[in-house]
């Protein structure tokens, strides 16, 4: 929070720009970074706000995975046709996938226990 108040970056510039360029698929001028940074800051603030509301709605003080799932559902990323696991497989690297999808690490168990 202190960092943000002094006008620093939400995420490292090189990281943000590499992701942005990957999805933009065209040349991206470097002076768009301040704009993206501002948008990201707003996005994260809003995200935190929403997650807090959802957690209190479920009478919890801790934000859990289901809160985030609900948020992504409301944002339209998760639908009945694209469940969370599909998104995880599509966008996250292998080590995070292993962490989030129990089937990937459960060995021969048919019904793995959910990591929640």
């Amino acid at each position: 929070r202190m960092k943000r108040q002094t006008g620093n970056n939400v995420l490292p510039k090189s990281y943000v720009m590499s992701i942005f360029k990957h999805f933009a698929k065209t040349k991206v001028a470097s002076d768009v970074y301040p704009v993206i940074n501002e948008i990201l800051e707003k996005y994260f603030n809003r995200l935190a706000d929403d997650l807090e509301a959802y957690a209190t709605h479920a009478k919890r003080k801790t934000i859990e995975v289901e809160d985030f799932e609900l948020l992504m559902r409301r944002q339209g990323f998760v639908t009945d046709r694209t469940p969370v696991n599909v998104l995880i497989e599509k966008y996250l690297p292998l080590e995070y996938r292993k962490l989030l999808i129990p089937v990937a690490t459960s060995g021969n168990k048919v019904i793995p226990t959910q990591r929640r």
Partner: protein
Amino acid sequence: MDDSEAQKQRLKAAVHFSVASLCENIAADSEKQFTKQTIAAIAETAFRQCDIFAKDLEAFARHAKRHTVTMDDVKLTARRSTALYNYMQQKSEELASNNQELKDKRKKNAAKRKSKEMEPDENEVED
């Protein structure tokens, strides 16, 4: 399949009718006319918005481990727009106070009924 389609058309017609009467009120107030196409477009938008609302409300209720959608869920859908949220807050308080009054009345009635029940040959309807 055909039946559900017919049901959907009926629902849409009902929405269209309500939207048309609301638009008529607005037109009378602001002295501007709505074209038929505009009303149809608003009706269609309202219909689809209901779809989104229903899904959100269901997700919110399930999130709070309930099977019934409550006022809390409805308020949560309007959280993003402050004006709407305040309006709904006010309305929900009105509703709550009305319900409280009704409950009090019912309690009084129940108390009366109980005193009546003491007397024999008294048939009354349970609610």
